[in-house]
């Protein structure tokens, strides 16, 4: 049950390996990694991620605690970055461990759905032409209704 909010890069391989080893009585480990995608035109210079320092950690911990309880997880990990990121950079990751695969998959999807719409992060894209805030998608809000 770990939450980390940080500006620095994280080492995905080391994190996933360490998480899986620490949960190796669980049978099923799922990991999701979010990566800065370029625009369709390929003109993205950078993404700036702003967050709400006083709230971010506790909001993520609350989301995580709900998932841990609902799926009786053996382990969970959330890492989310803020600051300036370039195309191809990893933004965040979640990992979940459970005895069975369905629980590991569902809980990871739950974490992602809530992170998308309930964690206080905002993304601004800077292209060669200008900049704009990434808008929340109706589909992301709608995704919460299944839980």
């Amino acid at each position, binding site marked *: 049950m770990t939450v980390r909010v940080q500006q620095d890069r994280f080492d995905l391989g080391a994190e996933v390996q360490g998480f899986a080893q620490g949960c190796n009585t669980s049978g099923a480990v799922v990991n999701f990694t*979010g990566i800065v995608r370029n625009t369709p035109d390929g003109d993205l210079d950078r993404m700036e991620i*702003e967050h*709400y320092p*006083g*709230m971010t950690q*506790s*909001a993520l911990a609350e989301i995580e605690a709900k998932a841990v309880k609902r799926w009786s997880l053996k382990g969970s990990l959330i890492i*989310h970055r803020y600051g300036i990121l370039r195309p191809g950079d990893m*933004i*965040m990751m979640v990992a979940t461990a459970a005895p069975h695969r369905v629980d590991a998959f569902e809980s990871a999807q739950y974490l*992602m759905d809530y*992170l*998308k*719409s*309930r*964690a*206080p*992060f*905002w*993304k*601004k894209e800077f292209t060669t032409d200008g900049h704009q*805030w*990434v*808008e*929340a998608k109706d589909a992301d*809000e709608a995704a919460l209704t299944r839980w």
Partner: protein
Amino acid sequence: MIDVLYFAWVRERVGLPREQVETSAATVADLVEELKARQERYAAAFADVSALRVAVDQELCAFDTPLAGVREVAFFPPMTGG
């Protein structure tokens, strides 16, 4: 005195990330009306409240949340984490 925080384009429109506000507003919605009456930049930031979210003492809340005893109110657009 309440700490009022702004994030993302709300921050950009208001022109600052946080300020202390002396208010007797009963609810968040009342506070919004007070702010809108202050200056054009607030009116621009809060023009469409349905496009905004609010956190009261760092918990997401509705706009009719009472402000009694509250230390911190934050306004921002829908979040885009993940």
